[in-house]
């Protein structure tokens, strides 16, 4: 599998860091604990964290792996550390998780210890210095190809990644018309038969990282001319496509189709491996004012443990400590980092002008 575009990650990290670097804030109480832990040998550090977590006895977590997937992951953690009482909200999305922590902290209420979120949704929390710096040797478990996901300033712990790409219904798309690249979404053969979710920053930032702004706008323009379907709900779009509603998922998670196909081999699903796949870095981030800092650290480290990573692979999600469960090694990955706000505003405007044309 191709390496991630390290340079772009560094650029994004630099952009996210600019504010914090300009005005270094004093360390919060949890950050002081984490700084002290960083000075300890690995074994002693782990023992100290577990000891501290035992004393705290509780972890308040917003876990954005949905439904049974997230519940299974939390259950595994609890099995490992049964002394912790877990207060887990597992029914909200990545953006909502970041918004919830932001709301609590803005109101001066320190309720949540850690959240699981896509790194791009941390932007506002980082800008407001509400994420703890947590240096941890656990990141040593991350495979070299994913090390670009690591934050040099230790504000997040990458532990899985999500793939967005093109897929299609093999019953509806004849082999001669199989899409190969993103530009094939403009093929008139697919007129009115390519679906997208309503405006998503991560999709647009991925296209921007892959093509640059001008080419992204041109792609959106030609997609728009092909009368795309815009419909809310990744899973529902996938199900509708596989039921024969339309031919192609212009952008969607790929694992759902793979899971359905493994459940029923007749599922008419195929992934376009030749088109680059957009990768979202999913992380654990600790509240700068976490009420249970040791428990938060315990969870953050555990996410990169062998059992946590194996669980992800079994569930067809993208672990960072293990090879991907179904994507071939030679697929090209694009890290869909957030571009500057002005660029994103222009991309969103182009999206609404060409693709999601309101009536």
């Amino acid at each position, binding site marked *: 599998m191709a390496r991630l575009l390290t340079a772009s990650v560094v650029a994004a990290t630099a952009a996210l860091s600019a504010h914090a670097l300009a005005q270094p804030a004093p360390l919060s109480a949890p950050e002081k604990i984490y700084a002290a832990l960083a000075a300890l040998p690995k074994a002693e550090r782990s023992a100290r964290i577990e000891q501290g977590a035992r004393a705290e006895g509780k972890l308040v977590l917003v876990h954005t792996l949905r*439904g049974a997937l997230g519940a299974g992951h939390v259950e595994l953690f609890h099995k490992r550390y049964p002394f912790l009482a877990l207060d887990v909200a597992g029914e909200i999305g990545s*953006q909502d998780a970041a918004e919830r922590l932001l709301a609590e902290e803005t109101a001066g209420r320190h309720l949540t210890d850690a959240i699981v979120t896509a790194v791009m949704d941390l932007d506002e929390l980082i800008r407001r210095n509400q994420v703890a710096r947590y240096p941890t040797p656990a990141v040593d478990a991350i495979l070299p190809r994913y090390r670009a996901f690591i934050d040099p300033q230790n504000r997040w712990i990458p532990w899985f990644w999500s793939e967005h790409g093109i897929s299609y219904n093999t019953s509806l798309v004849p082999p001669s018309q199989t899409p190969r690249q993103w530009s094939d979404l403009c093929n008139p053969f697919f007129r009115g038969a390519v679906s997208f979710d309503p405006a998503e920053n991560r999709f647009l930032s991925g296209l921007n990282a892959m093509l640059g702004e001008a080419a992204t706008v041109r792609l959106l323009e030609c997609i728009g001319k092909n009368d795309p379907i815009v*419909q*809310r709900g990744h*899973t*529902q779009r*996938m199900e509708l496509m596989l039921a024969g509603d339309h031919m192609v998922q212009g952008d969607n998670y790929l694992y759902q189709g793979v899971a359905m196909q493994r*459940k029923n081999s007749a599922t008419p699903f195929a992934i376009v491996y030749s088109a680059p796949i957009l990768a979202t870095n999913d992380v654990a981030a600790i509240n700068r004012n976490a009420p249970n800092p040791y428990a938060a650290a315990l969870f953050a480290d555990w996410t990169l443990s062998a059992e946590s990573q194996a669980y992800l692979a079994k569930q067809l999600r993208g672990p960072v400590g293990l090879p991907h469960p179904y994507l071939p090694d030679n697929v090209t990955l694009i890290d869909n980092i957030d571009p500057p706000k002005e660029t994103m505003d222009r991309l969103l405007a182009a999206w609404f002008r060409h693709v999601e044309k309101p009536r």
Partner: protein
Amino acid sequence: MTRLGLKEAALALLIAVLAYQVIVPFAMIIWTSLKLARPGEPDFLSLSFTFANYLRAYGGEAFWRISLNTLSFAFAATLIAFVIGAFMAWVIERTHTPLAGLIGVLLIGRIAIPGILIAISWILVASPNIGLINQMALRLAGLRNPINIYSFSGMVFVQALELVPLTYLLLGAAFKAMDPRLEEASAMTGAGHWHTLRRISLPLALPAVAAALLLLFLTTIEAFEVPLLMGTRAGMRVYTTEIFYDTSRTPVDWGLSSTYAVALLAVAIVLLFAYFRLVGHGERYQTITGKDFRPRRIDLGPWRYATCVLALALVFLITGVPFLMMLYASLLPFYQVPSTAAFASMSLDNYWTLFQNSKTVTPMINSSILGPAVATAVVLVVALISYFVQKTRLPGRRLLDFLGFAPVAIPSVVLGATFFWFYLIVPLPLIGTLTIIGLAYLTKYMPVALRFVSASMMQVHAELDEAAQVAGGSWARNFLKIMLPLLKPGLLAAWLWVMVHAYRELTIALMLARSQNRTASVVIFDLWEEGSFLRLGALAVLMFGLLSVLCALARVISARFGVEEQVA
């Protein structure tokens, strides 16, 4: 405490409840709409205000296009829902149509099905390419996609069907409490059924009719599932989807979302004033007096079979189609259009999987507590509001009605956020409890329940209360022993409506959910997000069965202790 003192205490408590439950959220919404700072930020509480959010929201062409979409959608859905609902209420409550009771139960049972599943069911029935109707049209007549549910008319159709049970409950309660002697008098003058219905029955039900129109219109403006699942694909954006997309980004633009909510409030105020003008003389609609009466059913002769067939066809569309779609889907291993292979692959696996998941138990218990508790609290509050507004001469009493009804203008996502923010800022330990959800529901469901009970209250003649007072009964005793029993049709309809909706409400529950206060609807959402539509179908089938039994029981109880017995 003296008799007068108890009444005053009840009034003071009511004002306190309304102030806390309604004025505070509205103040918060209006305040937020005038701020660029987020709640909790230092500048949020300062006394500097800006209209920047209003300029952003209302200044562009998009707002007016969205307004037009919203209003035309609401108008069309209201009209259709009202016509069908009024017909159903009349057939079920006032005629000797065969199977009327069963039709009523099936119609009310429909509200047990979560709205999101109704929308999905109709997508599976009438979407292009895979919809059952389009498949049949192609196979039988060679027609390609004659119907498209992803359209304005598709949205209106599904939303209108969604609202028919509400219309039925509102009008049915009024029809049940109608004095038949007035109709008999009309008949004696030689007027036929149609003339009597038009000149006597419907005008007498004017408060309920106006309440139904008002509620249907505002409920449609606040509707979310249909615009989200069908409107987005049709390119039809309305207020609620706009607010949803505004609150789906980080950081959420609370100022802009609140500004849209203020627009909804303005619409609600205008409509509420129109409603008050329409039903301004409450005494005209009083049919329940001290004299004995029994609501009489109209004998339609052979036409009763025609009304039966038509009502059955409608209830099939409203309840049967979505239910059968869910039943069908719940038996499949993966969704596929009906075929021999699909039927051969059916099993009960989705049901077993549901029962094996222990994490569904606590949320079900939570909802089973929340639903009845909230419904009871709401019904008590709105009964008091109705009483003070309609049976007293208190200055400013209309304000109580307005406060009780105004939350209809707050979209659930904004209401949920307001309660979340409020209890974050105010140091009360309610975050993560069932109480915070219950309080939010109290505000959310007051408007609908108020119109149910208000319409019934208008039919109760003031002479009953006055007679009880003359007989020396205390105010509390009169209220509990005379007023509430007389209001039973409206109270029961309101209680059922609130209970079922509180059981299945999602948006607020999701915004306020933590590990200990998850509700059944959050489980539904989990299944939905997981893409387990088939298991979701299984859950919905079970919920439908359970709540239909509850509705049937309620009807039995209503028949046993309803108006007939109280006044006879």
